[in-house]
C-alpha cells in the first residue's frame, strides 16, 4: 500500500487513512444499529443535526483558535495591497475604507444575530441599513480603484512587521561581518602556510 512517500495509493497519510477507516466503520455501525433496533427516521435526522452542529461549532472554534494563535495571519486585514516596487512579503498602508467596511459589517452582523436570538426568527434588514453597508462598500471599491491608480502610495508595514524586518536586517549584517572575518582569517592562514613552505624549501 505504501508508495515510499509515507502515503498510500489513495493519497492519504497514515493518520488520515486511519481516521477515514474509523469514520466509515462508525457510520456502518450506526446504520446497522439503527436498522436492528428500528430507529425512526426522525431520530436519525436528529442525530444528523447534532453531528452537523458539532462539526459547524468545531469549524468556528478552529478558526478562532488559529486566529488567536497566529495560524491565520491578520496583519494585512485592513491594508491595501503592496505596490509592485515594494519588497516581497511587505504589506501596503492601512486603508480607512477597509476599516470602515470592517466596523460596519461587524456591527450589523452582531445586531442581526442578537435580534434573531431575541425574536427567535429571522429578522428583515431594512433598506436604510443596507444603504449604510452600500455606502461603505461603494467607498471601499472606489478607494481601491483610486489606490491602484496612485503610484506614490507605498507600503506602510505594521510596527511588528517593521520590528521583524529590522531584526532580520541586523542578523544579516552580523552574518556578513562574521563571513568577512572568516575570509580574512583564511587569507592570513594561507599566507602563513606559504611562508612556512618557503622556509622549508630553504635558500637552495
Amino acid at each position, binding site marked *: 500500500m505504501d508508495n515510499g512517500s509515507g502515503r498510500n495509493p489513495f493519497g492519504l497519510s497514515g493518520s488520515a487513512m486511519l481516521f477515514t477507516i474509523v469514520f466509515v466503520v462508525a457510520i456502518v455501525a450506526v446504520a446497522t444499529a439503527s436498522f436492528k433496533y428500528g430507529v425512526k427516521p426522525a431520530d436519525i*435526522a*436528529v442525530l444528523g*443535526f*447534532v453531528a452537523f*452542529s458539532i462539526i*459547524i*461549532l468545531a469549524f*468556528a472554534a478552529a478558526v*478562532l483558535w488559529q*486566529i488567536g494563535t497566529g495560524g491565520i495571519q*491578520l*496583519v494585512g*486585514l*485592513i*491594508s491595501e495591497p503592496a505596490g509592485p516596487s515594494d519588497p516581497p512579503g511587505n504589506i501596503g*498602508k*492601512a486603508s*480607512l475604507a477597509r*476599516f*470602515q467596511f*470592517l*466596523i*460596519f459589517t*461587524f*456591527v450589523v452582523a*452582531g*445586531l*442581526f*444575530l*442578537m*435580534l434573531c*436570538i*431575541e*425574536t427567535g*426568527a*429571522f*429578522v*428583515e*434588514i*431594512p433598506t*436604510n*441599513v443596507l*444603504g*449604510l453597508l452600500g*455606502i*461603505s462598500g*461603494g*467607498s471601499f471599491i*472606489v*478607494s481601491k480603484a*483610486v489606490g491602484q491608480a*496612485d503610484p*506614490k502610495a*507605498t507600503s*506602510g*508595514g*505594521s*510596527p*511588528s*512587521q517593521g520590528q521583524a524586518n529590522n531584526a532580520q536586517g541586523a542578523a544579516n549584517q552580523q552574518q556578513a561581518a562574521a563571513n568577512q572575518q572568516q575570509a580574512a582569517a583564511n587569507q592570513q592562514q594561507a599566507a602563513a602556510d606559504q611562508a612556512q613552505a618557503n622556509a622549508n624549501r630553504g635558500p637552495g
Partner: protein
Amino acid sequence: MAADATASIIRYAILPWLFLLFAVVLLKILRGDINTAGLLRSRPGGPVELERVTILAASLFGIGAYALDALHGGALHDLKTNTYRMPDAPESLLVLLGGANGLYLAGKLMRLRS
C-alpha cells in the same frame, strides 16, 4: 427534544463566538499585530488629513448611535405579516455618512490629480 437543545446550543454559541472574534481583532489592532500604519495619511510619513479624521469620526459615531438605538428598541414587529425587522437607520445618518465618504473620496481623487 435533542434537536431543540442542539439548536439552543448553536444559537447561544454563535453569539459568543462572534464577540470573541471581534475581541480578537480588536486586541490584535491594539497590539499592532494588524497593520494600522497610515490610516489617517495618504502617504507614509505625510500629514494627518482632515477628511480622513472626519470619516473616521463620522463612521464611529454613526454606527455607534445606530447600534445603541437598535439595542434599546429591539426588533420591530410587523403585525400584518407577523415578521420582525431591524430598526431603520435615520435618513440623517445616511446623509452624514454619505457626505463623509464623498468628502473622503473627493480628497483622495484631488490628491491623485495633483
